[in-house]
Structure formats: C-alpha cells, structure tokens
C-alpha cells in the first residue's frame, strides 16, 4: 500500500450526493483480473456523451482539474457495491484523497486499504471548500494526516476524524494483512476451540 502523510493539491469538485460505485466505475469494466488502467474509465458514463465524445460539462474533462489529487465530493460518496475497483480507478486517475461529509462504509474501508484517504469534514467546512474552489479552481488544499487537518483559504484549518489503526497503516504504508498474519497463534487457538464443535 502507498504511504500517506501530507498532500497539497488543487481539487476536483463533484457536488452531487450519493454517488454510487456504478458511476465511479461501471460494471462492464470489472472483467479485469488486475488493478491497472481503470482510471481511463473513471466516471466513464458521465465523462462521455452518448456518441462517445467527451462531455465538456463534466468536471473531469475540464482543463483546470487535470493533475488534481483531491476529489471534493457530495455526501454518502461511494454507495452501492463492494467493488474495490472504485478506489483503484480513482487512484489510477491520480486521486489520493476524497473529502466529503460522509462515505459509504464499504467504500471507505476499501479506500483505506489502498492508501486512498477518505476525509470527513463538517457540512460548514464542506460548503466553504466548494465556495473556494468555485472562485478559484486552482486553489490549493492541504491534507495533513499526522495532525488530521485539512487547511484551505487563508490559513483556515479543520480537523477530521481517523481511526488510529488505519492512520498508522497509512502513515507507514503497511498492509493490514501483515497484522492479521501476526495473529497466527490466536487464530490457531480459536480454531482449536471451535472446530468440530
């Protein structure tokens, strides 16, 4: 997993609420057997018009968001299926953090396992961020995982919650599988006391 400490970037604003994983990466692109190249199809059906040409209205096609590493999303982002292809596609496109007021549970879990940081902010800061980006699409936002803060505008900073275990894994870039494997003794003991009972 990729490490995450601190990130400064301009943002991609996508105000819509309840964005589901079928929009993030439509099912017809799930036939892959690896994780690569999914960014090409990120938001495919919103990105392209019916004739296959890029939809100039859709935010990902705007020149000013190119290179952005932060997605500023509406509430309940990532609802729907458990497909980890959703965070893979976002990361493959270049997104390293998503800021919203809330996330769907499985999407959040999947993101944390890949080094994609889900950042939950209060409604007020969320609104303010959208305002800042509307004014200046190049406005930079800094996310600091160590201090769990998002800073933007003129030194304005807000805190975000993060469970300590996930935080440590992200800071060190360690896969949680290592932790589970280190529990071997306890797992074996659990099996010994439950199997065949």
């Amino acid at each position: 997993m990729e490490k995450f400490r601190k990130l400064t970037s301009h943002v991609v604003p996508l105000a819509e609420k309840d964005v589901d994983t079928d929009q993030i990466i439509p099912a017809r692109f799930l036939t892959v057997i690896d994780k690569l190249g999914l960014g090409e199809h990120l938001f495919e059906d919103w990105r392209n018009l019916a004739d296959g040409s890029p939809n100039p209205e859709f935010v990902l096609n705007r020149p000013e968001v190119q290179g952005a590493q932060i997605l500023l999303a509406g509430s309940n982002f990532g609802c729907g299926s458990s497909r980890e292809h959703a965070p893979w596609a976002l990361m493959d496109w270049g997104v390293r953090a998503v800021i919203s007021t809330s996330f769907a549970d499985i999407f959040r879990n999947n993101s944390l396992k890949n080094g994609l940081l889900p950042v939950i902010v209060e409604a007020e800061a969320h609104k303010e961020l959208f305002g800042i980006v509307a004014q200046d699409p190049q406005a930079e936002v800094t996310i600091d995982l160590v201090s769990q803060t998002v800073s933007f505008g003129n030194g304005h900073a807000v805190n975000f919650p993060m469970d300590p275990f996930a935080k440590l894994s992200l800071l060190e870039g360690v896969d949680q599988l290592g932790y589970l494997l280190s529990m071997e003794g306890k797992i074996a003991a659990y099996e010994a006391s439950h199997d065949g009972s």
Partner: protein
Amino acid sequence: MTDSNPSPRTMLSKIWSDHVVAQEPESPAVLYIDLHLIHEVTSPQAFAGLREAGRQVRRPDKTFATMDHSTPTLALDLNLVNKMAAAQVRQLAKNCKEFGVTLYDLQSDRRGIVHVIGAELGLTQPGMLIVCGDSHTSTHGAFGALAFGIGTSEVEHVLATQCLLQTKQNSFEVRVEGKMDPGVTAKDIILAVMAKIGVDGGNGHVIEYTGPAIRALDMEQRMTICNMTIEAGARAGMIAPDDTTFEYLAGREYAPSGKAWDAAIDHWRQVATDEGASFDRRVTLDAGELEPMITYGTNPSMGMPLGDRIPTLDQFSDVDQRQSVEKALKYMDLEPGQSLLGHEIDVVFIGSCTNSRITDLRLAAGILDGRKVAEGLRMLVVPGSQSVKRQAEAEGLHEIFLKAGAEWREAGCSMCLAMNGDELEAGQYGVSTSNRNYEGRQGKGGRTFLASPLTAAASAVRGAITDPRTLL
C-alpha cells in the same frame, strides 16, 4: 455462562463476541469467518496477491466459489460473453483448482448467484459470520447470521488468515408491525423501508428486522429484505432464526444432521436478540398500511406506493436532496407530480439475488398463467440458481413463461448488473425485480423501475406499469 443475570444482548452483539479472535487497544477486532463465498469478479486480484506472496488458502473447507456475475444466461457457453469476461471466469476455475477451493462451475447443477446458492446448499446457518466480496452478502442475515460484503483486499485477508479486521457497527431495529395485504410482498416492505430511511439511512449500522410481519415471512422473503438492506447503506441486515429458519435448513446438503442437528438447534435458539436488549436506533412500520411500491429515481430510496404521484420538488426541504431528485428525474425522463401507473415500458426483468428464488418465480407465473406478455415487450426470467431452474421446470413454471412470450434463461446475475450482455438499451424503460436502479446499472442509458415480482409480471402483461392487484 458465568453471570447469573446477564444484561440482555442483541443478536449482533452475540454473534460479534462469539467471533472475536483478538482485540488489541486502539485496533479493530480480529474476527473469525465461518463461511467465505467467492465469485469471479472480486476475487482474481486477491488470489494473485496470495500467489505473489507464496501463501495458501488457510481454510479451503470454509471457502466456496461460484460463477455468476459475468456468465452467459442464454446457454452455458463462454463463447457467448466477451473475451475478457470469459477469461475472468476461467481465471476463477484456475484459482480454485490451484488453491483447493470447492467451485460450482458453469457445468455444476449447484451453480447459481452466490447469495442464492449459499442458502439453498445449507452453507448459510444461524450464528455464523459470513463474508463475500459482494455487497449483497447481507442476504444471508435472513438466517440470523452476521453477513456482510467486503472488498478485494479483504477477500485476500480472509483467504490467507480466515480472519478480518472490523470495527463494530451500531445496532438498528426496524420493526414491522401488522399484516400485509394480498399483492404486497417482502420487496414492497424493503422498498418502503428504503423510502423512509433513505439511501444513507443505515450507514454505520447493522439492521435487525423484527415484528409480526417479519416473523410471518418465509425464508425466501426474509432474504429479499436482508438482501436490500445494503441499499440503505447498512452493512448487514438480520432476522432472528426461528422454526421457519430451521425447517428451511433441515436436510440441506451442508446443514448438520443427526445428533449434530439437535445440538445445532439448541445453539441457534440462543442467537436471537434477548428480550429487553437495547438498540442504538429504532424505526417502526405498519405492514398493513403498505401498498405495492415502485421506484421513480436513480437510487433505491427514491420509491413510492404505486398509486402515488412522483413527489414535486418543493416537497424536498433539503437542497441537495432536491437537486438529486431533479437530476434523477431528468435521467429517467419523468416529471415531478406524474403518476407512473400506465407508464409504458420496454423490458421486464425477473431475476437477481433479490427476487429470483422459486417463490418469486411462482408469484410471477401466477400472474402470467393464461396471459401473454404485451406485444413488443421483452421479458427475461432468470432463475437465481440451476436448482431453482430445475424446481421451476418440475412445476411447469417455465412453460407458463414461454407460452406468455417471455425468455427462460440459465441462472446468473444477468441484467441485474448487465455484465454479461443481458442489458437495457439506451433510453429503454425496464421494470426489474433486482435491487439497484442507478444510472446505467442495467445497461448504459437504461432506465430502471424497481418493483416486486408481482408488479413486474403484471406490468409485462399490460406493457405498462400496472398495479398487480388488478390481475390477481
């Protein structure tokens, strides 16, 4: 039991603590998984991870795989799906062989949608902790199990260690009082729950369904309810096991038998939530007030009783909510305030892990018997498993469907997520018994109305959205 007067506990709490392998401070719990179900779409990268690290599947005996998402339903021939889908299906066979996992492959008479076969094989049992790389794993909670969907990284974790790191969710009781009228089904209950609590109303929670209307449901209807629980954002849905559960399980392939059966029942009876246990949140519904439901928008909570009109935008006080309904109606090409009864449709899909079991097919066949699908309308009936298919054929249901002019297919996910070529065309309207009406879910540009098998079948007959009570 050491405490002579233990405080009452929820089913969630009991199953959770029964499965804790380790719990260190500042860390999520390490939970033991009793049953891990696998399918072709969310597992290849997990097996690849094992292979790269030279690891084994820790408990192949607790791991079962099937092929369902991208498989063809016209005939069991991989040449019928695109090359990548076929390669993914073959990769699953290769992985299962290499790692010693039981696989119900394309030729198996026990194959089907992963959440349909888990129950019908008796793999799903009360008190278990069940996971699968699929959000609708919540289906299995109908048996009084804690069952939830996981991502591919977690699939790898479970393959390697049979364990998962989890933080406990809050408990949420949805109590359904009263008794349903004829023409109203479990699908209508869950669509009504969705409309009431919203598409994120269950976030951070596990929902337990209680009350007389739930107790009166058979296992298949209970599965429909738990299945769609994920659509409200809840991680899992559950229903306490009772005699209905035990009768369903008795004699199934993987269910315990003989002495072990009696011991299992004793254990299973302990699983239910204790009288007086408290939940973090509660909502009550009266089944007697419910009518057949239909969705009008692009998430499953945008639903209403069939006879109602689509809400007008000023009915939404929340600006974001208003904007999403507005956008949804634009995609659906529908007007606020419009009635959906009589709205013309192009396709009817009966299938998916929500409503593709034998009782669902019987409901649909009951409406279609002696009737025809409307001219120009396409109707697909896709059984949830090969076993459901055999049962339906033994009862002659397939003949009713075929005579009516519907297509009768092999088991699979099919048009529920349109990965295998079964899909709506752009602009088409479909009434579907599946679980998601997201934009493009059933085919790029397709528009989905979610409803019960009764409503879907009645709408197929009339070629337009129809109240099934007019055809009962």
